[in-house]
């Protein structure tokens, strides 16, 4: 599903990513861990084809994502730092907009069903401007429910969600993988992130310093490795 090799990204003279290689099969979930400023968001944006790497190669669903970004975008869904929400539209209007823009004009019943899943059905006709950060996060996830992406990229998806929301999201991501989707989650949240991951990777100083199956890692061992590799590299957390 994803094959990235030797990705490098610099902003002017400052390197953000250095020689990052990773691959991800259909039905797999990868959790990216790392302190702030280590390149997690940059990597996600490159995988989403929103950012061009300075060098390296990237194939998504078998296509060269650097040469033909539009061809692979239909396979990608993303919830980044921004929620893609228009504040003056209602929840259901936001979903309708992105559903049409995504090329799948979902009927109103499906939009309502998506809102029901994220427990926003009672506020479907309320303007997004009145929503809390957590509600906006749920609305962004409802948009993903309507999508047809096979690769889902999530940047800090658990932020702003309460306990029930985290549980729901975890279940949704597991179901997404079970349907053959591939998942990349960048997070600070060890527990929530690991719950949906088959592999865990640690980014430190723009480099991938660890990429292992979660089955080989205990929680305590991962915590120790994270402290050694990410925080021990002198990067502020």
């Amino acid at each position, binding site marked *: 599903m994803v094959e990235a090799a030797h990705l490098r990204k610099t902003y002017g003279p400052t390197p953000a990513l250095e020689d990052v290689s990773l691959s991800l099969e259909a039905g797999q979930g990868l959790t990216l861990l790392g302190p702030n400023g280590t390149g997690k968001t940059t990597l996600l944006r490159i995988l989403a084809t929103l950012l061009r790497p300075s060098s390296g190669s990237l194939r998504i669903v078998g296509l060269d994502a650097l040469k033909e970004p539009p061809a692979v975008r*239909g396979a990608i869904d993303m919830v980044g730092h*921004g929620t*893609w929400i228009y504040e003056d539209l209602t929840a259901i209007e936001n979903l309708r907009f992105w559903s049409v823009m995504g090329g799948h004009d979902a009927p109103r019943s499906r939009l309502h069903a998506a809102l029901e899943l994220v427990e926003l059905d009672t506020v479907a006709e309320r303007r997004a401007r009145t929503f809390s950060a957590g509600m906006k996060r749920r609305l962004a996830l409802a948009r993903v429910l309507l999508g047809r992406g096979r690769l889902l990229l999530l940047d800090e998806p658990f932020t702003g969600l309460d306990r029930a929301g985290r549980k729901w999201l975890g279940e949704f991501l597991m179901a997404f993988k079970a349907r053959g989707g591939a998942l990349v989650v960048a997070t600070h949240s060890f527990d929530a992130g690991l719950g949906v991951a088959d592999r865990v990777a640690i980014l430190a100083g723009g480099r991938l310093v660890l990429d292992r199956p979660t089955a080989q890692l205990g929680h305590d061992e991962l915590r120790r490795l994270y402290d050694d590799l990410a925080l021990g590299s002198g990067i502020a957390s």
Partner: protein
Amino acid sequence: MSGYVRRAWIVVWKDVLSERRSKESLNALVFFSLLLLFVFQFALGPERARVETALPGLLWLGFILAGLLAFGRTFLVERENDCWEGLVLAPGDKSAIYLGKLAGNVLLMAVVEAVLVSLFALFFTLDFTSVLPGLMLVLALGTLGLAAVGTLFGAITAQLRARELLFPVLLLPAAVPVLLAAVSATQTVLLGEPLGEAAAWLKLLAAADLVYLVVGVLTFEFVLEG
């Protein structure tokens, strides 16, 4: 409805709905038009001949100044909550987004122009009824040209830090052919002459509209990708 038309339509729908609810641009533009008219009336005084001579230029000065405010904001809403990213990742031909934004801008400008022309009639006791069809044709062609180039430059500058400075610097020179033709055609129409007298200016307007539209449609994808 094809996917392309549906995407263009949903952008218009979203922009019109957002504007109807927030009234951010419309309120500011109507208030700005009122201020402009006060300034014009103060500068020109009560002498009717002077007003009639300056009227075509004043009308289009009002429209372009309102357009500078309106078009520059077109894509700012897409920066909020990173909606821009969503537009980039949306599959399909991106020019549908441009055409949707353009249609939204034309509608907004149509409202502002209707208000401005009505206020001109009220403030300067002018009667436009006999020249209204010709005037509407010139306004429609001129507005389309201004909105076509304004929407494109609005997208180009939306991602820049110095956008408030760069937007008028880019837009005004590019809009010169439209303004020149629109002011001249408006003058002919307001003098009560047959529309055929302004044929050359109308052709220039239509040609400029076509060029700006084609350039906008062809280049928008690159602009959106940054």
